Each structure stands twice: as C-alpha cells, then as structure tokens.
C-alpha cells in the first residue's frame, strides 16, 4: 500500500502545482482560443487590415469617406440597418416569447405538435422562402387580393412593402431564435419564484413584467444578439422590399465596383456596430444574477389553470402557428401549381404534380440533400463541442479575455455571409497550419467549416443562457462526490443544460441545411448543397421545381425535429 503511494506523490504535487496555479485556467481555455484563432481571426484579419490600407499604405481615408457627410449614402445605410435591426429584435421578441409562453405554459391537446411546428419556419429555405412572402402579402399576394375580392375594393387594401415588409420577413423567419431560447428558459425557470411573487400579491401581468421576463434575460440577450446581428447582415429581405440603402447592400456595391478596401471598411464598421451591441447586452446582463437560488429543488406546478386560459391559449397558439406557417403553405401551393399560370388569380388556377415527379425521377435530387445533411451534421457536431465548451468556460470559469472570446465567436455571425465566405476562401485556398497544411478550398471540408464558423454562436448563445440559469452548486456537489470535471459535465451539466444545447443544436443544424450565401461561393460540384440546387433551379426559372425542392427540404427538417423531440422526450431540461 505504502510503496506505490510514495513515488506517486511528487508528480501529484507538480500536477497540483500546475492545476492550482492562477494561470491554469488559461491552459483550459487555450484550445478554444486556438480554434477561434484558426477559423475566425486568421480568415478575418485580412478584412480589417484591408480597411486601413490603400495602395499598401496605412490610411483612414476609407473611414473618413464612410463618415463624411457629403456622401451620406453610407451613413444612411448604417442608420437604416441599425434601425431595421432594432425593430426586428423587438418584433421577433414579441412573437417568439408569446409563442413560447403559450406553448410552454399551458397544457392542451395538440400542444406537443404545435411546439414542433412553431420551429418549422426556421426551415424556410432562404431564397424561395422570402419569395413566398411576396406571394402572400405583396400587391399580387393571396391575402390582399382575397380582401379585395371579399370587400369588392378597387385596389388591394394593403400590400407589404418597404420597411414593414422587411420587418415582417425578419419577424417571421427569425422569431425562432427567441422562441427556442425563451421556451428553454421558461422550462428551466424556478416555479417557486412565480409563487413567491403571487403570494406577495402580484397579478399575472406583474409577475411577467417583474419576475419572468427579467429572469429570461439571458435567453433574451442571447436571442437579441443573434437577431440583431443577423438583421444587420441581412441582404435579401431589404432588397426584395426595396430598402436597398443598407450596410449589406453598400458592401455588395463596393465589391461589385471593385472597391475592395471600401467593402472591408464597411464590413469592419458593420461588425463594430454589432460588437457595440454585444457590449451593451453584456453590460445589461451583468447587472444581475439569474441563477436559480432556491434551496433544494422546487416543486413543479402540476395545477391545471382555468379552462378559459387553456382554451384561449390553445386557440391563440394554433392561430399563431398557422400564421407563421403560411409562407410554407404557400411554397407547397406553388410547388403544385403549373408554372406561369398563376397570374392575376388569387389561387393557382392549374395544379400539377409534375414538379414532384421531376424531382423524384431525377437521380440527382438526393445527392445534394445527403450533402447538406452530412455537412450540416458535421458542422453541428463541431458547434456542439466547441459551443458548449465555450459557453461553459464563459459562464462558469473566471479568466481574463472573456469578452474577447465572446467577440470572436459572434463575429462571423455579425458579418454578411458573402464576407465570411470570401474570407474563408482567401484564408484556406493555400495550405496553412490551421488547415493541417491542406488546401481546403475545393474540398468537402470547406463548407462544413463555413457552417461551423458561422453557426457556432447559435449553440454558444443558447447554451450559455441555460447555464446562467443553472445553480452551480449542483455541479459542485458532483465534483465533491468524486466526479472528475468531465464526469460531472457528462452526467450533470450536460443533461441539465440539455434543452438549451438542443435548442442551439437544432438551430445550427437547420441553418446549416438552408445556408445559401456562403455556400454558393464555396461549393464544389460534388458537395453542392440543397440551397445551391434550389438556386440553380430558380436561376433557370424552374420555379415550381425549386419550390418542390424547398418543400422536400422542409419536410425532411420537420422529420428531424419530430424525431429529436421524440428522442429527448420533449422534456429535456424541465427538471432544472
């Protein structure tokens, strides 16, 4: 007994010395920074350098030009982008949190089904998805035309355009960020807090305003960041509705004109604005603590609420989900209509299954689908590994450089997809240490990598929001019982944060399947993803087939969502 112990003692001590060092934590987070260095800093550094360089000289001229009042286009674009983004955050929050509330707080028949359907709009394929809004709400859209018919009007009563069109599209496609994180947070909320508030005399609204919403702060901050940044980088929606003075448009124009330095400047400013927003949100979130502090595990409320509330919730959530699903239904409609026949009519006059027949008889249909699923799965796996690790480090560990970590993770999300892709192309078209001395461009790996870099924030954000809610002493208990960090992570932290991780994972996976903007710049003929395939059909104006393809994509994603739900029992994390 004694002999084997003694020689073992010194190494233990040295290890102890290392692990107890104040700097040990940096050894732990170093891999995270390394990954970010390789796949974020390294590719993106050039952009920032370019923004300060004209003819090889350091110069602030581009910035001067950007902010000059003489040519206000840039400033105008900046303002429009920020304005749109802020409003988008607000409307997405309203829709997402309301849906989460209706679906998480009331038990009624069909609820489980609706919780999944409410996630489906995130599966809307980016290109044709936006189009379906035109089919619905534009001047020639189904709804305005129907109203015109019903009320026998001269003109359509309304049509979606301009600013509100953009907001509408943003809301309908991005509310899922709020929905997913908020439902996770509502599930994880300590029910005794509401009880405490109620026993102090607070009515339901007051409880929402003063307890529930503030306690959802980490979730709201997470999704606000996601929505704000993606709105800043949004391109298609503003364009479709004729708001073309936006930052992304300016970047696009600069690149078309060949003013790459100006494009770099605009990209930099775009990311700086997003970073400022990140700072603001971090500051706000840091003001308070959101960690469950109750002693023991609170009793979950099993009480049935008033029947009225139950049926109202049922009606409202069904209505809500239906409205949110309308764009998808329209896609289905188009996919069944004969190309070119649907002109002045409210609904397509002629139907056909030809598009599907074409799709299913084409041997090349499934390859891109397999590609997309495979690449997105790989990227998502990476996202889960690094996103969860980073979130854990962020919430649980104390080290300097947290903000930097946060910033680096969020950066690729804050930039337009084109910029991200172009950066990756230039970084990985030559062998480098970060790509294990391989040329990644033109290989299979570049797309998963792009998805990984771009969607890391989704897992990271939603996981950290959940972790922030979780009582850390539970983890301490596990450690105390002898569990190594990894064991306690696996057995305690992971299952408890599962619903948050899952939300992020689903978001990342679905986004990966639909990703277009950077895919189109990075794909090869062997790795062509669904989105590119749809684009090519649209490009050839095989509109019906494109929609059929989109519908196929949605159906597959819905299956994934349902299977996930079944597998996790739908109550992952409810025990927090």
């Amino acid at each position, binding site marked *: 007994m004694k002999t084997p112990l003694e020689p073992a003692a010194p190494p233990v001590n040295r290890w102890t010395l290392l692990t107890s060092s104040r700097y040990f934590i940096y050894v732990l987070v170093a891999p995270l920074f390394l990954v970010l260095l390789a796949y974020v800093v390294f590719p993106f550094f050039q952009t920032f350098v370019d923004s300060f360089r004209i003819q090889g000289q350091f110069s602030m001229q581009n910035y001067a030009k950007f902010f000059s009042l003489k040519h206000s286009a840039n400033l105008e674009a900046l303002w429009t982008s920020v304005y749109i983004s802020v409003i988008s955050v607000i409307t997405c929050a309203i829709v997402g949190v309301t849906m989460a509330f209706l679906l998480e707080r009331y038990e009624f028949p069909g609820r489980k089904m609706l919780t999944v359907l409410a996630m489906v709009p995130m599966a809307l394929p980016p290109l044709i998805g936006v189009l379906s809004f035109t089919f619905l709400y534009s001047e020639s859209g189904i709804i305005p035309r129907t109203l015109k018919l019903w009320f026998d009007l001269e003109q359509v009563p309304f049509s979606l355009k301009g600013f509100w069109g953009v907001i509408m599209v943003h809301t309908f496609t991005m509310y899922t960020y709020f929905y997913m994180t908020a439902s996770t947070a509502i599930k994880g909320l300590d029910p005794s807090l509401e009880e405490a508030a109620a026993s102090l005399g607070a009515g339901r609204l007051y409880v929402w305003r003063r307890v529930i919403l503030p306690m959802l702060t980490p979730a709201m901050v997470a999704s606000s960041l996601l929505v704000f940044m993606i709105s800043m980088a949004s391109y298609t929606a503003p364009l479709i509705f004729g708001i073309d003075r936006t930052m992304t448009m300016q970047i696009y124009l600069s690149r078309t004109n060949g003013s790459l330095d100006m494009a770099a400047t605009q990209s930099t400013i775009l990311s700086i604005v997003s970073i400022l927003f990140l700072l603001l949100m971090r500051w706000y979130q840091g003001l308070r603590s959101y960690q469950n502090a109750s002693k023991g595990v609170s009793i979950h409320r099993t009480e049935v609420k008033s029947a009225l509330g139950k049926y109202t919730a049922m009606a409202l959530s069904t209505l809500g989900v239906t409205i949110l699903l309308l764009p998808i239904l329209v896609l289905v409609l188009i996919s069944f209509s004969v190309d070119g026949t649907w002109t002045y009519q409210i609904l397509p006059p002629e139907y056909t299954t030809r598009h599907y027949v074409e799709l299913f008889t084409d041997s090349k249909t499934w390859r891109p689908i397999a590609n997309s699923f495979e690449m997105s799965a790989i990227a998502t796996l990476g996202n889960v590994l690094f996103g969860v690790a980073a979130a854990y480090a962020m919430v649980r560990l104390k080290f300097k450089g947290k903000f930097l970590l946060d910033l680096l993770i969020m950066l690729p999300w804050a930039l337009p997809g084109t910029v991200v892709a172009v950066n990756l192309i230039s970084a990985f*078209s030559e062998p480098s240490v970060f790509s294990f001395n391989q040329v990644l461009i033109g290989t299979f790996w570049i797309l998963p990598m792009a998805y990984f870099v771009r969607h890391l924030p989704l897992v990271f954000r939603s996981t950290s929001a959940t972790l922030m809610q979780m009582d850390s002493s539970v983890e301490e208990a596990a450690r105390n019982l002898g569990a190594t960090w990894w064991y306690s992570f696996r057995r305690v932290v992971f299952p408890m944060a599962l619903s948050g991780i899952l939300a992020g994972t689903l978001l990342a996976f679905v986004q990966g399947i639909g990703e277009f903007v950077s895919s189109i710049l990075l794909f090869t003929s062997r790795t062509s993803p669904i989105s590119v395939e749809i684009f090519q059909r649209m490009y050839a104006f095989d*509109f019906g087939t494109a929609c059929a393809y989109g519908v196929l994509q949605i159906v597959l994603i819905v299956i994934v969502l349902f299977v996930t739900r079944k597998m996790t029992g739908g109550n992952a994390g409810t025990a927090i």
Partner: protein
Amino acid sequence: SGGGASVQPAEKPAEKPAEKPADPPKPAEAKKLVIYTARDKTVVDEIVPKFKEQNPGVEVEVLTMGAQQVLERVRGEKANPQGDFWWGGTQSMFMTAADEDLLAAYKPTFAGTVPAQYKDGKDRWYGEMLLPEVIMYNPQMLKKEDAPKDWDDLLDPKYKGKILIRGVLASGTMRTIYSAMIFRQGAGDPAKGYEWLKKLDVNTKEYTQDPTNLYLKMARQEGSLSLWNLQDIMIQKETKNQPFDFIYPASGAPILVDGVGIIKGSKNEEIAKKFYEFLFEPKLRSELAEKLFQIPTRSDISKDTLPAWLKGIELKPMELDWATMAAKEKEWMDYWDQNIKGKGAK
C-alpha cells in the same frame, strides 16, 4: 477601375503557393475542367454533354452561380485558383476581373471573327453572345399597339405605375442600360440624362430584387412594362410559358456583351482552351441561337444558319462609347442612386 487598389495586398501571398502546389499535385492527368458559370442549367445541359462527347475522358465540373459570385470566387481563390474557365458574365465584370489580373490572356483561333468592341484588347476575355436591351411587356395586359415604341415613349404619363425595373445598382445589365440612357442625352453633361431618368423614375412602380422577382411580378400583373434583355425575354416566353414579349426600340438598343475567359493560374489550361474553341464553333452557335435565343458575337456565321426569330429583327445598336461609359458609370449611378431613385414616384 477602383479594383486595382486591392490587388496589391493580395498579391504577396500569391508568390509562395505558386511553387508549392506545383510539386505535390496529382500526376498531370489534366483530364478535368472546372467551369464557373453564370449560365443557367438549360444552357449548361445543352452544351456540356456535347463537349464531353467530343473529348471523352475529360471530367467536366460545372458550378452554376450568379455572375457576381463567380467574380467573388475567382477573386477569393486568386492565390490558388480552383476554377479554369469563366463562362458568362457582363462586360464590366470581365473588365474588372481583367483589371484585377484574374484572367489569363489567350488568343483563340477565331479571334479575328469577333469585332473589337466585343472583346478585350489584351485577349483576356471574349464576348460570347450579344444581349440587346429592349422593352419588355406583358401581352396579357398591354396590346402590342399600346406598348411604347421607343425609349422616350416610356416617359409617357400613361405608363405611370406600370413599369417594373430590376434593381439597378446590383445588376450590371441595368447599370449599363441606365448609363446608356444618360449617354444618349449627351455624355458631356449628364444633367439631361438625369432629367430623363427622373421622369422614368416617376413612371416606375417598383425596383425588384432580382430577375426572378421581375418575372414573377410581371407575370402576376403587378406591372406590365420593363427593360430587359432580348434573350431572356425569348426564353421566358418560349420555354417557360410566360406572358412576355418585347419591342425593339426604334432608335436602337444598347447591345451588351456576355463574355467568357480563362481564369489565370488555371490548372487545366489546355482543356479550358479546348472548351473555349468548342464554345465558339459556328455549328454550336447556330444551334444555340435556335434553341436558346443566343445571338452570337462571331460575325462570320452565315445568316442562313440563323433561326427564324432572329431574322425578323434588325439588330440596330445604340451608338455608345463604351470607354466613356465605363469611366462614368460609377459616378452616374451613384448620383442616380442618391438623387433620383425613388424620388419621383411620390
């Protein structure tokens, strides 16, 4: 153009890999061709199989994307090009790319048959086909006689709220048309041109995001008139069952060039050259003219082999000075964007 500035920083890293990949690449099979194209599926499916037939054993990889994305991609991959042949893009894009040193010079055998205004002076790109920009209308809404006959007719108040325009700034084609409209009113002083465009803006109902949207909205009767290129109108009309038709403006149309080029640093340059030659073969050109409404740049194709639809049209070009227009385009478009666009409609 402004693109030149950014060339320098990217150039340095280009030197290293020039040698490196040279050593390890797979044995020079060179049986592969990577095409970046902005041609749509129909065109590709028409041509590529034929090429393969002629060159058995060559693996052709075609990546379809927007012309802009081809440019972005070629630019990004400059240090280690992955593509070989750039098939399809506007003249201005090719000029930008040439400026940024992204294209290899190659003088094809048919060089002499392409008129000078349709090719690069240094042989870095050649126009493949001509795209006359014409007036497009929806015959379900507008009878041919009621449609405008010339550019100036578009300004007629009776067309107010009927015109849809594909987003101008983002489209090389539209920029050229608009610049041409200014040029037409006198290049020396754009004020008159601006005035003209202002009136057009008054009549314009909406600027659409992309061609797809333009087609959709035209078909769905949100507007009845547009400015668009002849080829696409014909394709939509004939193959996609769309209710479109065109009017060739009496005073002549700006004729754009859609070009091709070999990407500099291409790893399969020989095959790319083969494809280059193949693409311009007179037989193929006639076929394409027939099936896909492409108007060849080659001037040596006998009129008899051209399809019927082309015979009826006299391709009267608008008198334009491309160099001036290229130089002024950015300034004019910026002005239009900031001072004219959307200002008249209200």
